């Protein structure tokens, strides 16, 4: 009798979800997800994916750094070359003096 009552109760518990309806997602939640996933997306984004924008930014940065480096060290290098030429000329002058 006790066993029957226990089994009967277990059966009732196991059947307690039968015919349960669906939980409904609040409209605000759906709106939020819509805004979140589509934030900033659109035709422009689909034409130019974010990784392309990032790649372009990196290339521009590297090109800028290169230009700066060239402007700074390029000038110094010219001066160094000029002084080297002057030194070489001095040597030749020395040799010329002694008619060697």
């Amino acid at each position, binding site marked *: 009798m006790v066993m029957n009552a226990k089994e009967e109760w277990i059966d009732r518990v196991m059947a307690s979800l039968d015919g*349960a309806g*669906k939980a409904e*997602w609040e409209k605000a939640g759906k709106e939020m997800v819509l805004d979140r996933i*589509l934030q900033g997306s659109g035709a422009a984004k689909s034409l130019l994916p974010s990784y392309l924008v990032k790649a372009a930014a990196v290339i521009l940065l590297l090109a800028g750094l290169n230009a700066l480096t060239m402007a700074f060290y390029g000038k110094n290098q010219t001066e160094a070359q000029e002084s080297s030429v002057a030194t070489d000329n001095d040597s030749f002058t020395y040799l010329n003096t002694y008619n060697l």
Partner: protein
Amino acid sequence: LTERDFIEELKKGRREAYSRLLELLGDKIYSACAGLLQDREDAEDVSQEVFAEVFRSVGNFRGDSSLETWIRRIAVTKSLELIRNRQRAKRFGKIISLFGKEDLVGNMNPGTFQHPGVSLENRELSAVLFSAIRQLPANQRTAFTLHKLEGLSYNEIAEAMQVSVSSVESLMFRAKSRLRQLLGRYYEENIR
């Protein structure tokens, strides 16, 4: 609009298409997550994650299954991930408490979960069942909940969980046996 055309609209990132998708499947996915996770906030978060994933990955969707099956699979995977993380954290919390430290994780699911779809007369009994379901291993819990609460067939569950139908049958058999065992113990301790 055929499903293929609809998917193309989704791939283009059209707001109207996503709005329609949420209208069609939003409640189904949220309800499945709510049943699996037994927490409305978690269900809300995971549902949002699911649709964000759809947005990110729809470009790779080949159409081998229906759109609904594919999205449900994402929902089940994400819910399972969360359940397993929680169960792992709970186990870790128990180990910590064994060493006399404070249980850092605490009780993961305080109180009793009430599924909004359950009728008023079944609320009390379903709360006991939900608490027993929480004791099941994650995959048994998933199979049982999808079948009982979402009314999915074994075939649909197999697709959603990416396992064979015979695995689902086995999971369901073990879940039911374990639940009857847990409920029997609960009856002995609280009802009798």
